[in-house]
C-alpha cells in the first residue's frame, strides 16, 4: 500500500476506533423508567414480636443453671421473632405482598425489606398493612390518597415507635 493511502487508512481506523468509543460511552440512551411511570420504594427494618410466649422456670430448672445465669430472673423467653408480613394495596388492588423472615442465625433480629415497585403516575389510594405478630393479624395499617408524578420516587418507611407506616412522598412536597 502506498504511503499516503496508508496514512489515510490509519486515520480512518483511529477515527472508527474513537468513534465507537465516543458513541457507546453515552449512546444509545437507556430508558430506565417509562415516561408515565413513577417509583415506590418500600424500605424498612423492623423486628417482629418475640415468637412464642414467655414462661417461668421451675425451681428445678433454676437449680440446674449456673449461679450467674440465675440473676436474670425466672422468666425465660424464646429468642426467635415472628415473621413480618407486609402488604401494599393500590386503588384496592394488591400491589405487593411479602413475608419477611427475621435475620440472624436464631431468627432473632430485624426483618428487612427493600423493594422498588414501578407504578403508573397519577392520583392513587395507597394502603399499607403490616403484621409483626405471630398470629399474622395486621396490626398496623395506613391509607393515603397520594399524587405520584412521573419519574418521582415515593418512599414507604415503617417505624413502630412513631405509629407505623410513613409515606414519604416528594411529589407532594414539590406540589407535583
Amino acid at each position, binding site marked *: 500500500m502506498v504511503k499516503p493511502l496508508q496514512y489515510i487508512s*490509519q486515520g480512518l481506523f483511529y477515527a472508527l476506533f474513537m468513534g465507537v468509543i465516543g458513541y*457507546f460511552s453515552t449512546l444509545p440512551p437507556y430508558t430506565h423508567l417509562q415516561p408515565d411511570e413513577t417509583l415506590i420504594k418500600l424500605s424498612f427494618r423492623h423486628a417482629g414480636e418475640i415468637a412464642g410466649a414467655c414462661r417461668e422456670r421451675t425451681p428445678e430448672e433454676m437449680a440446674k443453671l449456673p449461679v450467674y445465669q440465675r440473676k436474670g430472673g425466672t422468666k425465660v423467653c424464646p429468642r426467635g421473632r415472628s415473621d413480618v408480613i407486609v402488604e401494599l394495596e393500590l386503588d384496592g388492588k394488591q400491589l405487593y405482598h411479602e413475608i419477611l423472615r427475621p435475620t440472624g442465625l436464631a431468627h432473632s433480629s430485624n426483618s*428487612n425489606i*427493600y423493594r422498588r415497585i414501578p407504578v403508573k403516575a397519577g392520583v392513587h389510594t395507597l394502603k399499607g398493612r403490616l403484621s409483626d405478630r405471630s398470629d399474622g393479624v395486621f396490626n398496623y395499617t395506613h391509607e393515603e390518597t397520594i399524587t405520584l408524578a412521573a419519574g418521582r420516587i415515593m418512599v414507604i418507611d415503617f417505624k413502630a415507635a412513631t405509629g407505623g407506616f410513613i409515606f414519604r412522598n416528594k411529589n407532594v412536597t414539590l406540589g407535583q
Partner: protein
Amino acid sequence: MTAPDLTESSARKALLRLEGILNKIFGNDLNPLYYLGALGFCFFWVLVVSGVYLYGFYRTGIELSYPSVEYITNEQWYLGGVMRSLHRYAADALVVVMVLHLLREFILGRYRGARWFSWVTGIPLIWLIYTSGINGYWMPWDKLAQYATVATMEWLDWLPIFSGPLSQSFISQEVLNDRFFSLISFSHATIPLFVLFFLWIHILRISYPVVNPRRKLVVGVLLAMLVLALVKPALSQGPADMGIEPRNIGIDWFYLFIYPLLDVWSAGQVWALVIGISLLLGVLPWLPSRFKQIPVAEVNLKYCSGCGFCVADCPYEAVVMKPRSDGMHFTEEAVVVPDRCVSCGICAGSCPSSTPFRSEANYVSGIEMPSLPISGLRAAMMNDLAKLTGDARVMVFGCDNAADIGKLRSAGVAVMSLPCTAMLPPSFIEYALREHQVDGVFITGCRESDCYHRMGGLWTEQRLAAKREPRLRGRTEHGRIRQFWASSADFRGLTQELESFRATLRDQAE
C-alpha cells in the same frame, strides 16, 4: 506438534484476514491487534495520569462532589475537562482492548497448556477493571452516578452476605452519608493498585513481555483520543436527586451494560451470568479439545555447557540456570520448568550443541524436545534433500502454527515443519547449503510480530542476521537464503514468494 485446537476455525480465518488488512494499513510492526495487551497498559497509564490530576480537584461529599466535577469540566475545560474526557475514554478503550485481547487469544488457542497461567490471572483483572470503572461512574454524583450506584446496591443486595439491604442507605437524600464519597474516592484510588498488581502477575511467566506499544501507535491513539475529548467532552448528566428516578440516561455501555439487564432479569440471574462466565473462562484451558502438546523440553547435562542461550531465548521463562549438579567444570546448567514449557522447541534451536555438523549419527543436543530430537531432524532433512531433483532445489523450513508448508513439497522442494521456526538451529541452513548442495533455503513461519510462541520469528531473524546467538556464520551465502513470514491466510503469497526465490536461484545459477 503443538497445533492449536482451533487451527482452521472460521473465527481464526476471519481474524487472520482482519489482521492481514491491518498489516497493510499499519505494517506488521504497528498492527494494533498485535499490541492489544500493550495498549491496555498504555490506557491504564493514561488513566493513572489523568486520574491523579482529577483527584487534585475532586471533593468528597454529597454537596461537594458534583460541583467539584462541574468545576473541573467547565471552568477548567482546557485542562481539567480534557483530563476528565481522557480519563473516561481511556477507561472505555481499556475495556475494548481487554475484550479484544481475550477474544484474540481464545481464537488463536493461546490459553491452553502452560499458557493457562496468563489466561486465568486475566480473569480477576476483568473483575477489578470493571469494579474500578463502575466505582468511577459513582464519583461525579450526577444522575448516571445515582442510577449506577442504586442499581449496584440493589444487585449486591441479592448476595446473602450483608446484615441488611445496602440499598436502604440510598433511599433518600437524607439518609445518604458523606462517608460514602470518602469510601468511593478511596476505593477508586486503591483498586487500580490491585489492577497493577494483577497485571504484574498476568505477565509473570512471560519473557520479554510487551508492555509498551510502539511509539507511533501510542501517538496515534493518544491524538485520536484527544480529538475525541475535544469534540465530545465527557459531561455530567445533572445533579443526583434521590427523590427523582433517573429515567432516560446516557449510560456507558462498555461498563454499565449489565444494569439494563437487571431490569429484565432478576439479580440472581445476572449474578449467575457473570459468575458463570467467569467460571467458564477459568476452566476453559482444561476443557477437552484437540489440543495436544508434545512432551516438554529436556536437558541433557552431558552436552549442556551452561551457556544460557536457551534461557535467553525461552519466551515463557521455562528454562532457568542453576548451579551445576554433575561435577563438570561449568558453573551452571540449564533446568527446564515443565509447568511453564509450551514445547515450542526454541531452546533446542538456541543450543550450540544442536549443530548438525556433529559426526555421530544419533547425537544428542544439550536441550531438545524428546519427541523431535535434533539428530532425528537432521536425518529427516538429509533423507528429504537426497530425493530432490531438478534445478533450484530448495529446503523449506516452516512452523506448525503458520502456513501449511506441506503443500509446497515438490520434486525440487523439500519441507520441514517445526513447532516453531526458531527451533531451527542456524547451522542447519549452512549444513543444507554446504553439505547437501541445495540451491537455497527458504524460511517461513508466523507473520512478522505475531509468532504463535511469541519470539520465534524475531529470534530467527536475529540469528540469521548474526545479531543473536547462535549466529548464522558469516561465510554462509545470504543470497541463497530467503525469509518470508506467512500465516495460513497468506498461502498464495507464500507460494509466489517461493517461486520468486527459485527463479532468483535459477538466475544465479546461469
